[in-house]
């Protein structure tokens, strides 16, 4: 064996997620949690509504996390976190960071009302949406986070999703909260940095983490990270921050924006798309990217 050298790990060593959890092979949502907890540390409380993570964590009387969890009702992640935060403060714990941890369905769809309420009041919580772009836990039904063109069990190939993904960042920006960021499991160092940053800010923080799902996307488990990285590099899911709803910062700049074809090709959920449809999706991605650059340049 070669001469031993000191390993340099690019992420905090602390491990608050344990093995033995119930996630599928190559699960992006699980990596999102692992990375986020590395940034959050021990002094944290999670509110998890119905989502993959309500299964991943493990059944009663077990848990796979070394932090407390309130498994709350589907549409209440954000406000449950506000309640926990208020309760902890009133019993003298002013330090614990309270995090709402929800999927895209619990955020973009059923939980958006409570989230909007929390953001409007600027309650002091971090809201993290791990986005796998459909209701994966119930068996891959479309959500408003499902992208244009995708197959799901409720958008069969003959009737694929024909509306774009909801622009959640824009909705949150309209609430003028102190911090919004997109992050990706393909860029864990950036993700950890953003969660740490959110932890230091008072008020409502919204983080949107892109988390591929092999069974739902009909992709190979080993491609999870590759897909997450590709989505950043082709600007389907760019990484940026918005402060107070106004100041946009692009975190991963693209010298050369990659075409979307390779990304779509390795996912079964897009296999039915014709050339014409792919061209349309590319145009939409380009337009959205240009709009984002305008916001970023306008912030300077």
């Amino acid at each position, binding site marked *: 064996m070669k001469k031993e050298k000191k390993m340099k790990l690019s992420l905090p060593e602390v491990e608050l997620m344990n093995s033995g959890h119930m996630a599928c092979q190559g699960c992006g949502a699980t990596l999102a949690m692992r990375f986020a907890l590395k940034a959050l540390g021990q002094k944290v409380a999670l509110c998890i509504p119905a989502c993959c993570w309500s299964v991943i964590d493990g059944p009663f009387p077990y848990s796979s996390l070394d932090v407390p969890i309130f498994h709350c009702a589907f549409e209440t992640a954000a406000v449950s976190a506000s309640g926990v935060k208020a309760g902890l403060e009133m019993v003298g714990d002013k330090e614990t960071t309270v995090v709402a941890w929800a999927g895209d369905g619990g955020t973009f769809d059923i939980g958006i009302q*409570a989230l909007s309420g929390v953001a409007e009041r600027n309650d002091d919580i971090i809201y993290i949406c791990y986005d796998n772009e459909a209701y994966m836990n119930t068996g891959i039904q479309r959500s408003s986070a499902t992208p244009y063109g995708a197959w799901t069990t409720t958008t069969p190939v003959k009737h694929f999703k024909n509306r774009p993904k909801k622009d959640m960042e824009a909705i949150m920006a309209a609430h003028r909260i102190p911090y919004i960021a997109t992050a990706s499991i393909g860029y864990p160092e950036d993700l950890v940095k953003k969660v740490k940053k959110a932890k230091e800010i008072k008020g409502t923080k919204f983080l949107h983490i892109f988390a591929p799902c092999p069974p739902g996307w009909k992709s190979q488990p080993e491609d999870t990270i590759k897909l997450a990285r590709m989505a950043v590099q082709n600007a389907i899911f760019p990484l940026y921050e918005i402060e107070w709803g106004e100041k946009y910062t692009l975190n991963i700049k693209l010298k050369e924006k990659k075409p979307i074809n390779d990304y779509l090709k390795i996912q079964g959920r897009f296999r039915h798309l014709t050339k014409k449809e792919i061209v349309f999706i590319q145009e939409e991605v380009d337009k959205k990217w240009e709009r984002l650059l305008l916001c970023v340049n306008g912030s300077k």
Partner: protein
Amino acid sequence: MKKVIMGNHALSYGAKLGRAQVIAAYPITPQTQVVELLSEMCADKSLDAMFIKVESEHSAMAACLGASLAGARTFTATSAQGLALMHELLHWASGGRLPVVMGNINRAMAPGWSIWSDQNDSLSQRDTGWMQFYCSSNQEVLDTVIQAFKVSEKLLIPSMVILDAFTLSHTYEVVDIPDQKKVDEYLPPFNPSIKLTPEEPHAFGGLTSPEHYFELRYKLQKEMEKAPALIEKTGKEYEKMFGRYLGLVEKHRCDDADLILITSGAMGSTARIAVDELRKEGIKAGNLRIKVFRPFPFEIIRNAVKGAKKIAVVDRNISYGHHGMFFEEVKSALYGYSDGLPVFGFITGLGGRDITPSTFKEITQYTLERDKPKEEIIWIGVKL
């Protein structure tokens, strides 16, 4: 200190004296004054609580659950549509063993829109695992909030303190507001042995398989079965300290009564007036007011009607396709214990239609004229 206050403010004072720590609520007529006064109390720091002004009743209860799990004493108030919107989370409170105390102003359910009193809103939540206290005066509202905190926190089961829209909520009565020090003596701070904290991390409410779910529900019911005795015990303690007993039922001239009118809520005081007038006419009537609907006080009701010749249950609610809900419960309590005692089921006052002494006289007349009820439901006051 005696004050003339509305029923809604009696709820607010109850929450204040109970030292609620987190309040989350959403306005709905006829509950608004409850939260308005609590907002004032939080703003001027006469109450050291955090008030989360949520965007819906659903979120109000969700916030209370989170705060309660973190170990804080929590309070909210709502009515009718708001309570219905909370329905899912009512199960969450009892199933999660979170002792939230909530005021509910009984208001009829839409459509058509109604802001007036009936009990279908709270009785529709019968099976959610909450204790339900139906009050008949503003004084009782205030006292019951304090007692409810004590009982709920001991059993880890949430409580609903219920009062009639307008008849109580907006009616001003003289209320004795107890001394804070004495209330503190009666009601110690909430200090649950298990709570959500990073110091001792647990995951609460996770996926529960058929291997374990059943036992959790068994344990909830076993605790609920302890509630009647605990309510009586804490009610007696309250009487000792404040001079007012808070029990499961209230009896008025039942002991030698031939006919017992069973009521709930504010119509209890109307029934008592009617009973006194009937007595003057030589009719031996009595009134049994059921205060606690969940847990249902089977034993005490069986004993209270011993010696009566007829029972008339007056419901300001209906379970469609069945009966008035108090009528159902009373019959189930008496079945096998009452030797064929005729029980008449009356429905009246839905959607805020007035219930007056003459309503009870009409009911009495009906029961006196018949040996047993001819109809499943006897409607009083329908203008058709």
